């Protein structure tokens, strides 16, 4: 295995709230090899977005970040602002959830692509415009020359997300972070966008972090999956292994709670009782313990570490793995 492109070590993110600091990300370690795909799955509030924002160094101003984020050998946390700026675009890029809000409504598509190319590749306007047309064509946008002159609101949701992807890809990044890239889109468009991401990733040999709440989205399209719950990674394994031999009860319960296409109507769903814990009042033991049917005294007393005690290549944080 080659040296990791991204290595996240003991990341914590604390957000101040009126009820005290909220630990949104609680000691997460991750590594990502060049060209590979990592899926991060979790429900809202599990910290997956904050984790991605930490990697991108785009946390809210009041958030407190701890730990190290090594990207191609440099620690992003301590990197000077100007160096970080030069890294963003050519090395590190992002696609956000809602292209309606992630594209600037008052600037044309052309401006938003061209400015990126100019900022990093030193192209003149004509060259950058030509490149912009190529990029839009590459992400499957018909009549790209005309689109350059249009504004985001004149495009459909799927087209907007294609534009956002074109911008992210414009400087050939080594790592693309896609944060719920299809959640705001319809299911038929979602499939198209996921295909586009997969295709471009392979073509450019780019690493991809795909963040989603939908286990279905990561199933067919990632090499490895990390499941997050209450700010922690609770299970991490190669994708096929995670779905066939999951060890963490939360992963099992999450998968079971999804309505299945092949089960008959009116089948009661095995729901997870209760709701995620209040992260301003961290539990002493396992965060999933109050909702877990296997929980016992040990789970209440101490947090299980994320480990691979069986040396089978899958990490999980549970005292009573399945």
């Amino acid at each position: 295995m080659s040296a990791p492109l991204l290595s996240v070590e003991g990341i914590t993110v604390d957000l101040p709230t009126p009820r005290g600091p909220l630990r949104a990300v609680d000691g997460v370690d991750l590594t990502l090899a060049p060209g590979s795909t990592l899926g991060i799955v979790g429900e809202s509030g599990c910290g997956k977005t904050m984790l991605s924002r930490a990697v991108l160094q785009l946390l809210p101003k009041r958030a407190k970040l701890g730990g190290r984020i090594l990207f191609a050998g440099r620690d992003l946390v301590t990197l000077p602002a100007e160096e970080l700026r030069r890294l963003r675009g050519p090395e590190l890029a992002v696609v956000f959830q809602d292209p309606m809000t992630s594209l600037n409504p008052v600037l044309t598509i052309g401006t938003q692509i061209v400015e990126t190319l100019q900022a990093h590749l030193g192209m003149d306007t004509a060259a950058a415009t030509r490149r912009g047309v190529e990029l839009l064509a590459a992400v499957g946008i018909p009549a790209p020359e005309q689109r350059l002159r249009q504004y985001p609101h004149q495009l459909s949701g799927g087209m907007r997300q294609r534009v956002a992807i074109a911008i992210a890809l414009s400087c050939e990044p080594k790592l693309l972070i896609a944060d719920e890239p299809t959640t705001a889109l319809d299911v038929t468009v979602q499939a198209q966008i996921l295909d586009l991401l997969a295709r471009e990733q392979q073509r450019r040999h780019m690493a991809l972090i795909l963040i989603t709440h939908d286990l279905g989205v990561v199933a067919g399209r990632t090499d490895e999956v990390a499941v997050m719950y209450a700010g922690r990674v609770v299970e991490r394994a190669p994708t096929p292994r995670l779905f066939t031999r999951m060890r963490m009860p939360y992963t099992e319960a999450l998968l079971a709670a999804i309505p299945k296409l092949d089960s008959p109507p009116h089948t009661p769903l095995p729901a997870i009782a209760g709701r995620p814990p209040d992260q301003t009042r961290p539990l002493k033991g396992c965060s999933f313990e109050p909702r877990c049917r296997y929980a016992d005294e040990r789970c209440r007393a101490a947090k299980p570490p994320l480990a691979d005690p069986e040396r089978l290549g899958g990490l999980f944080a549970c005292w009573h793995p399945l």
Partner: protein
Amino acid sequence: MAVLELEGDVATAAPVGRQRRVGVLFIGSVAWIAVIGLAAIFAGWLPIQSPTDMDLLAKRAPLFSPGHILGTDHLGRDELSRLIYGGRVSLLVGLLAPVIGVIIGGCLGMVAGYFRGRLETFAVGGVDVLLAFPPLVFVLAVTAFMGQSVANITIVIGVLGIPAFTRVARAVTLTLSEREFVTAARALGATHSRILIRELLPNVALPLLAFFLLAVAVTIVVEGALSFLGLGVPPPTASWGSMIGEGRENLDIAPWLAFLPAGFMFLTVLAFNVIGDTLRALTDPRPGAL
């Protein structure tokens, strides 16, 4: 789903922390208004001289003169007494005039924002007309017609405040009306008046109250401006505005005659602004534009 995770949690928490931070200034403001208010109410019982008695031997007495702690004005009237009685006028007009605005403008704005359609066009058009009309002409016409008195001044300033209140009420109602709880009430078979009173009013009331306090501050300033121009409360009744105006004539020899009432008015207006702004911040981060 998963739209901006965490934001939800943060938003649902009651704004406990914010009150403390605003503390000192807020308490100071409330205290100042309480002092001025009490002095204005009980002015008649306070051991001060009459605000209209002239002591022509002691014209423009400096501060801390015997018998006149804050000196006397160009007619030898006791400055402290005039300040207190002037506060009476400022507070009376300042508190009553916005009541007109908040009631008429609030109703108009809510109805316009809720029913939309032609009614809204009409209300918005009316507001635009009132805004385009030079307010001073209105003030002068009314005072010329009905006479300069505290009541007339109050009514005029109150009417001029209607457009602003209408705008705020309409903006808030408009966004609220699109919220699903209003549709839910309609689906339950609630009548329009019930929706307006039970569902919308409790939500519009707080932003309007905050705006009301800011309007009090503005009204005091406007009343002062009118008195300053000699269009407000007729002399010899004291008013902060007219005192500043009279003080201006003596700026070179007795500058305090202008700066004392100016200071009083500044502190009072500031206090109302602080209270209103605190309330606004606590209720709605971004209300309709003024």
